[in-house]
């Protein structure tokens, strides 16, 4: 049976962002039912039992996160929505916000009811101007319909949702960076603990959730846990810490494919199927060399490297669930943004681009990240000019191994994400890098300088 999209079910409809159409499709019925018949704790329990894991990148169980809030807190408790979607090659949240904002907003309303939050701050990156205006129009419709504001539907529940625009900084997607930015400060991530659930925005208990996670909450409350758990991958019985990969997932496909697009599939589609069946295959009749399976921070897989213990399969065949990318040395599923690089492209150019991004976006707070990302870029720049040295590759891997929260040298995970693509690319494509250093030829992009701008 063909899979029917749920999260994207409405995106092709005319006027899909409007309240009228959303209500005609059954929208806000779940919210009104919950408001009438359920206690906040019932909603927390249902979301926890659904197995929903956050869609922003780390995959932390959503309902469990909610239970970390202090009990009987005098308030206020805040919900922050992380719509800073800046992980390179990721755009699934944008599609939801532009095409079906009410599905996201209903999830926010349900979540605020569950965690007893009277205010949601919806932090949206500046670059999403269309999504910003679409959401503001949708929020205005909700105030007009009295679904937001004081005493909604005659209950004691009141809620305001405020959009807050960023200003072009990747670090604002880190949840405590986001909170600092919201508060009007530089977006330097905080040392944890305390986690935001204990002390977050304005020093109050705060939950930070992703946009797609909110759309999932809407669908879980509408369709139930049996539906949610009928999709995806159950926990690995051999791994007692695995919470499973349930539900539908939005995958974005980008780079060297014939049809870059956002598709919804049950969790666990293989990378190969995603690219070949849903992305129209690799462009220009070429072959895939490498794929970045979940945003740049997750690293690279080698499409030609055999997959251990699975005859005839390669790293290209890994399932894109929360565990799959980890089997081939990648950091995780991340944002499920899949970027394909064809076999005609130089890994030196690819890795230079990656290092350029992280060096530009390191917030500068922790020395290993600020200096490490800067030096990795300098080495890649040299390599791109055809002046690479023999020991450069070892230096790069050494730096990449030492920056981040995993080695314990930084406050946030930005530099784990900066290191992972470097070490996976060099470990998996070492021969190509060595040949490039040996050949001493400059990249076609070597003279392009983009420094000093904004």
């Amino acid at each position: 049976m063909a899979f029917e999209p749920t999260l994207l079910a409405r995106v092709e409809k005319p006027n899909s962002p409007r309240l009228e159409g959303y209500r005609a499709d059954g929208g806000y019925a779940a919210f009104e039912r919950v408001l009438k018949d359920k206690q906040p704790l019932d909603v927390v329990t249902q979301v926890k039992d659904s197995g929903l894991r956050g869609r922003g990148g780390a995959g932390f169980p959503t309902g469990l996160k909610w239970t970390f809030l202090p009990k009987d807190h005098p308030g206020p408790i805040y919900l922050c929505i992380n719509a800073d979607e800046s992980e390179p090659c990721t755009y699934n949240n944008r599609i939801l916000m532009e095409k079906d904002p009410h599905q996201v907003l209903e999830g926010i309303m349900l979540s605020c009811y569950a965690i007893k939050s009277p205010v949601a701050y919806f932090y949206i990156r500046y670059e999403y101007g269309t999504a910003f205006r679409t959401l503001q129009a949708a929020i205005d419709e909700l105030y007009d319909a009295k679904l937001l504001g004081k005493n909604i539907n005659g209950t004691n529940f009141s809620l305001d949702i405020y959009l807050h625009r960023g200003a072009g900084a990747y670090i604002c997607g880190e949840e405590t960076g986001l909170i600092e930015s919201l508060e009007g400060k530089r977006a330097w991530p905080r040392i944890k603990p305390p986690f935001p659930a204990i002390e977050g925005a304005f020093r109050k208990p705060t939950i930070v959730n992703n946009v797609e996670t909110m759309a999932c909450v809407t669908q879980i409350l509408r369709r139930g846990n049996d539906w949610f758990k009928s999709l995806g991958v159950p926990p690995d019985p051999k791994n007692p810490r695995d919470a499973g990969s349930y539900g539908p997932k939005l995958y974005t496909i980008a780079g060297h494919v014939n049809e870059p697009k956002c598709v919804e599939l049950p969790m666990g589609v293989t990378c190969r199927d995603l690219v070949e069946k849903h992305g129209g295959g690799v462009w220009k009749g070429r072959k895939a060399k490498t794929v970045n399976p979940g945003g740049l921070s997750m690293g690279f897989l080698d499409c030609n490297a055999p997959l251990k213990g699975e005859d005839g399969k390669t790293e290209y065949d890994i399932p894109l669930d929360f565990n799959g990318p980890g089997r081939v040395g990648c950091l995780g599923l991340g944002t499920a943004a899949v970027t394909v690089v064809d076999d005609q492209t130089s890994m030196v150019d690819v890795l230079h681009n990656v290092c350029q991004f992280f060096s530009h976006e390191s917030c500068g707070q922790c020395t290993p990240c600020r200096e490490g990302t800067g030096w990795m870029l300098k080495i890649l720049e040299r390599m791109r000019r055809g002046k690479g040295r023999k020991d450069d590759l070892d230096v790069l891997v050494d730096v990449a191994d030492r920056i981040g929260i995993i080695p314990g040298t930084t406050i946030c995970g930005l530099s784990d994400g900066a290191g992972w693509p470097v070490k996976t690319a060099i470990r998996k494509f070492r021969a190509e890098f060595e040949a490039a250093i040996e050949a001493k030829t400059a990249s076609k992009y070597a003279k392009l300088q983009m420094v000093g701008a904004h």
Partner: protein
Amino acid sequence: MAVLGPEIREKIRAYLPRYPRKQAVTLPALHLVHDEYRTVSNEAIVEIAEILELHPSEVHDTMTFYEFFKHDGDQLGKARLWVCRGLACMLRGAYELIDHCEAKLGVKCGERTADGKITLEFAECIGACDGAPACLKNDEHVMNVTAEKADQLFSELRR
């Protein structure tokens, strides 16, 4: 003589009830001022700080962190055109597109054209990878930008 007009001040104040602390209005205020005046001057920083009951250095600290706002001595063009240089766009011609834009406009990224109409910028991934290479026209995505499409954009923005 104040540099911020009464309307802008009113718009900034309208944000105050949304947050438990005035400092949270820093980014909204910076955006309002930057959009209107195409720069955030030192005087504007002092006046924003007065409204938000902050020290000017606090506003300045936040503002410069983002490297997004043009400040004293620099000015945005009438339009701001960002060319994405993220990996997905690079793989589909973004670097060639940046080269083309710089040559055609006669400026480097970060600079304003002589007629004051366009400020050219590079951007890190703008989340428009399904239309790579992509640009941001002020804050709106323009997808699948070829050299010809870029030239059309220039004339549109210069009108």
